[in-house]
């Protein structure tokens, strides 16, 4: 993909935007965009909530003891620059986007589940972009201390009228010994949005990192390849992605797991549907220790044009590792369509039933309103020209 000229975007201004104390009072149009990015502002079953609008943290609430949640700039001040977490897993000189995020930090959050604290209700985090030519460069730090549990629902969206926006997002994940982090990210960008997340995480012994990613809406140009390093024995990482690329979308994404300690396990599962867009679907599992297990699965459906380029990679020099991959790019099997038609479903009903099963967001265990919103998106997709 061509390089992105970051000078096109405005990475400052509005830093002191008025706080939004009550997210339910956001304009209806914005709330609607947020729901499709996984943030239901009416959901009270949350441990905390954070919202960033362009360059300002406009909302931050913490409802549980043992949970720290604040604007990254406040956290850097409060914790003397967060030396053990800030830019520890990523090099600011990695590329233009990390450099920009390093030089022009304009937000993001610091979230931490304290040692032994199990927060079963999710923390909502939302990155929202409004206006023309807005650039957002944020840095998030997620820490799950020893034996703690944290679920994050991260939604990223552009406002209805936002044009030609850019989102650069650095995220560093730290899952300490025996900790458990579930991070569900839903993107709802615009057709002209440029998106460059750069994420790296480390999971210590016995820790579990589960990542769910959903992209059902068009995006101009998205590129990301989050890396999870399993640094301690028995650590587990799973990436589960559902990506739909309509005409005009360009998505280059994948997940990378490095099994650097014995008895670690990694899994990368992705389902990609193109209805005219391009998806480069990457996956990498490397093992530098044994025994270790990894499995990659990239499955793609092409319906109504578009392109899928699946690049699964496995890499190890260790005796005793078990790495496997399964990649497929194709169409819905006629046999499956006919099986459902024999039960009385017409061809369109059969195809949409199979696509729904293929995308299978069910397994991500989303809260009901969110699951319904995703289902509705999938229905819209199917009743459109895609089928």
């Amino acid at each position: 993909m061509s390089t992105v000229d970051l000078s096109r975007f405005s990475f400052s201004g509005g830093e002191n935007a008025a706080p939004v104390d009550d997210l339910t009072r956001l304009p209806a149009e914005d709330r609607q965009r947020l729901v499709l990015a996984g943030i239901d502002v009416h959901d009270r079953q949350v441990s905390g909530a954070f919202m960033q609008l362009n360059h300002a943290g406009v909302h931050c609430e913490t409802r549980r003891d043992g949970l720290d949640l604040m604007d990254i700039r406040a956290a850097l001040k409060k914790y003397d620059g967060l030396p053990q977490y800030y830019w520890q897993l990523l090099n600011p000189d990695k590329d233009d986007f990390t450099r920009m995020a390093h030089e022009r930090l304009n937000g993001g959050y610091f979230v931490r589940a304290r040692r032994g604290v199990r927060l079963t209700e999710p923390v909502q985090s939302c990155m929202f972009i409004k206006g023309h030519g807005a650039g957002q460069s944020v840095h998030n730090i997620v820490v799950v201390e020893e034996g703690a549990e944290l679920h994050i629902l991260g939604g990223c969206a552009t406002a209805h009228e936002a044009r030609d926006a850019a989102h650069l997002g650095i995220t560093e994940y730290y899952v300490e010994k025996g900790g458990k982090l579930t991070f569900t990210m839903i993107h709802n960008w615009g057709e002209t949005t440029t998106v460059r997340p750069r994420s790296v995480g480390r999971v210590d012994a016995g820790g579990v990192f589960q990542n769910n990613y959903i992209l059902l809406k068009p995006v101009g140009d998205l590129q990301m390849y989050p890396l999870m390093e399993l640094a301690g024995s028995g650590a587990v990482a799973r990436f589960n992605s559902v990506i739909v690329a309509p005409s005009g979308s360009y998505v280059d994404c994948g997940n990378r797991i490095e099994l650097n300690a014995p008895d670690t396990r990694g899994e990368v599962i992705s389902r990609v549907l193109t209805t005219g867009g391009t998806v480069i679907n990457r996956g990498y599992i490397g093992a530098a220790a044994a025994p270790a297990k990894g499995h990659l699965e990239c499955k793609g459906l092409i319906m109504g044009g578009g392109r899928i380029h699946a690049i699964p990679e496995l890499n190890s020099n260790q005796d005793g590792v078990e790495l496997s991959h399964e990649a497929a790019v194709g169409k819905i099997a006629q046999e499956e369509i006919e099986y459902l038609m024999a039960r009385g479903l017409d061809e369109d009903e059969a195809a949409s039933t199979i696509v729904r099963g293929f995308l299978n967001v069910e397994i991500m265990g989303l809260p009901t309103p969110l699951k319904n919103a995703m289902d509705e998106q999938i229905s819209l997709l199917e009743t459109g020209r895609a089928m």
Partner: protein
Amino acid sequence: MLEIHDLHVSVKGTPVLKGIDLSIRAGETFILFGPNGSGKTTLLMTLMGVSGYEVTRGQIIFKGKDITRAPMYERARLGIGMSFQRPPTIHGLPTGKLVELCGRGRQMDIAGMARTVHFDRFLDRDVNAGFSGGEIKRSELLQLMAQRPDLLLFDEPESGVDLENMALVGQTVRRLLDGMPDTCSATLRERERRRSTSGLIITHTGHILEYVNAHRGQVMYHGKLCCEARPREILDHIANHGYQECLRCLAGDMYGKIAEAPLL
């Protein structure tokens, strides 16, 4: 219920069915015998409308409607239901959800229905994902229970099924055909009168005959039907003499051609 006239069917350009005439009345159960490769499955697939089975001549009339060229879902909605022998796996679609779709909006006690075929623990499993032979049969039956067809097409109910499951499969097929539970105290005559579901069942072993009231049977041989008789009689005959005997039933002009065909 079903009338088939002079049906010729080709698969990938090779003629398989060569002039089938068959009629099945409402409530009648018809058993189809025949050696492997004789065209039995082709007949069922053609009746259901599966692609790749090309009707080159003849007609299929179901409930008075010509369905020879009708799409599969129309046949299903008209009342034809088929149990597939090797159905595909559909990932991400729980079996219970498919059963619900089979009912097309009808109110059903899916869990209760599933219990009768010992399938309640499988409703959350993806359709046919890792199912054993017996599980596939029970899943197919459960879908048919929801679909409530008027004509049941069943390809080898006994294949891949152990004896215990055979009893369950047999009794369930009977219930589907009878439209009432086994324990119902209706007299035989009442049963016959009320029965409106027809069946077309393929069997090799005849185990299914222990469970269903089969009215008529015929042998398919080299794409033609011959030897109409009571199913039990046909089964005994095949057991004693094999399918060679069927040659004698077929017309003289076919004799030489059939004799050249390998008998399996």
